[in-house]
């Protein structure tokens, strides 16, 4: 499935956070959304996963406007991993992941052995199967993040949206999470902080500044020192990393 936003503008309490942003995620592509804090990445993502309604522009899933798709159908097409929050109610890890199956359920459907199999598989993918009976609140930040990823995987959607999935994670789990995501073979749209990730993981990137899409293209084509100066307001040098042979950014104070 393709996701397209066309000239999306979003105002929050009178202030325009996103201004005429047009982005596109093609099926199977891994697309990065970059930009400094407050550039509108999360807000744009929120409009795609229907927590916010844009004031202008339109959002299309394939060619269908988002508002014409029932919410439960959206949840079968698009899964979301947001930053974890504390829960007011206590659930077990497996119970939370099982809720990822709910978009596929009618009101009185029972959980089937198939559902439990999918839950086990998804927990295995994120290396959390051993903790499936633990209480969610007793997990570390990284573990919580991976449970939420497992829940999104259990939705079995063709597209995944992630808002800074590697925040708060140790470097080990950052890399592990990114590897998991890349090997999913799904369309992925993710907001990220670290531009170096773009070269390694993203097929295509959109760079945002002050609510506008400032640049887009393949990471190696568009990310250069001038763009970084313009968007992040820091000096940098881009060099070939002698170990990974990927472009790498050195920020200069």
């Amino acid at each position, binding site marked *: 499935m393709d996701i397209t936003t066309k000239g999306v503008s979003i105002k929050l309490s009178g202030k325009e956070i996103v201004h005429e942003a047009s982005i596109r995620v093609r099926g199977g592509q891994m697309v990065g959304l970059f930009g400094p804090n407050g550039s509108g990445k999360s807000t744009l993502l929120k409009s795609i996963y229907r927590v916010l309604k844009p004031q202008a522009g339109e959002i299309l899933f394939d060619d269908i406007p988002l508002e014409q798709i029932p919410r439960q159908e959206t949840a079968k097409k698009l899964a979301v991993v947001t930053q974890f929050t504390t829960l007011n109610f206590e659930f077990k890890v497996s119970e939370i992941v099982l809720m990822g199956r709910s*978009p596929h359920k009618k009101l009185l459907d029972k*959980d089937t052995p198939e559902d439990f199999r999918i839950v086990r598989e998804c927990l295995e993918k994120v290396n959390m199967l051993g903790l499936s009976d633990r209480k969610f609140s007793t997990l570390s930040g990284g573990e919580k993040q991976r449970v939420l990823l497992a829940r999104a995987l259990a939705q079995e959607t063709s597209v995944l949206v992630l808002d800074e999935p590697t925040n708060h994670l140790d470097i080990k789990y950052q890399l592990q999470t990114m590897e998991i995501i890349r090997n999913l073979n799904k369309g992925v749209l993710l907001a990220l902080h670290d531009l170096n990730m773009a070269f390694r993981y993203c097929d295509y990137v959109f760079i945002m500044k002050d609510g506008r899409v400032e640049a887009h293209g393949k990471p190696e084509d568009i990310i250069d020192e001038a763009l970084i100066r313009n968007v992040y307001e820091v000096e940098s040098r881009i060099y070939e990393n002698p170990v990974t042979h990927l472009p790498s950014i050195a920020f200069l104070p």
Partner: protein
Amino acid sequence: MQNKREVTLFWMLMAGLVFGLILSIIFAVSVGAVALSPRDVYGTILYRLTGWDIGGIENIGEGPLFDIVWIIRLPRVIMSVVVGMGLALAGVIMQATVQNPLADPYVLGLSSGASLGATFSIMIGASSVFTGFLANTGIAFWGFLGALGVSVLVFLLSSIGGRMTTSKLILSGVVVSSICSAFSNIIIYLNQDKSDIQSVTFWTFGSFSTATWEKLRLPTIALVVCFAFFLTQVRRINIMLLGDEAATTLGIDLNRLRRVYMVLTALLTAVIVCTCGIVGFVGLMIPHFMRAFTGSDYRRLLPATTLFGGLFLIWADIAARTLGASGKEIPIGIITSAIGAPVFMIIMLRRAYGFGGRD
């Protein structure tokens, strides 16, 4: 993961609750100024319900024994069951609606709103204002308006300035509840000459002493309808508990569901308050107790809570009837508050519930 042991435990819990409920009903009917033998009690009830004579009871189905069991005591005991179930159900649903385990019809002021609506309707003589369908439901209808008004008001007040936090929720509940009880008490004092207005004690602490089969009809219908409806909603409710954003991305239309749930809990609360006055804290503590056995999964929590609410209020009413000196009753709401308020405190002190909206 499809944990056989948990499933078995759940059904054992349910069986235990149903069994306990039946035994408690029989016991509660046998207790009173005239002590009856349990056998006389269930013999009479069985005979009245099925026509089956278990034998050994003189004058079965008539006389003083029948009057005490069927006309005086059983309606009261059944009312305590229905009210307990209804309040526990209303509480557990409100907790999901506002995603906070401290929500309860009493704490958030719905009960006071309902009693304000009810006393107001008695003051203006609503039962003669309305005709037809509304004629009999006059008081309950106004109580419903009161409860619904309060739940909308509390919801809006606690959402002012962004996220709804626990402290804002509880404070809004206290404020709105105080306003409502002040006004309904004014109405009661100004209308003491009216024969159909109950005392302040009735509205503040509740009472089952006026229970009749006739009065049971409306609360029972409301309870059955709400219970059946919410049983179909448990999967959605579970998802609501994950928080607004997560629920939205899992395909839940939160705004619509919240509205429906708020209307139904207001309705249930109002019907109960109009029948027996305000009985506090039941909806708060019963779900809290049951979570220890079932966890937060509403597929188990909802039925278990509802049954346990009924069981709890039978025993609270037995206490109300028997603890008072020289046959004087203690109002039921005093018993539930004496138990419920400390439970409220315990929940509040638990950091796990994020009092003050840590997140």
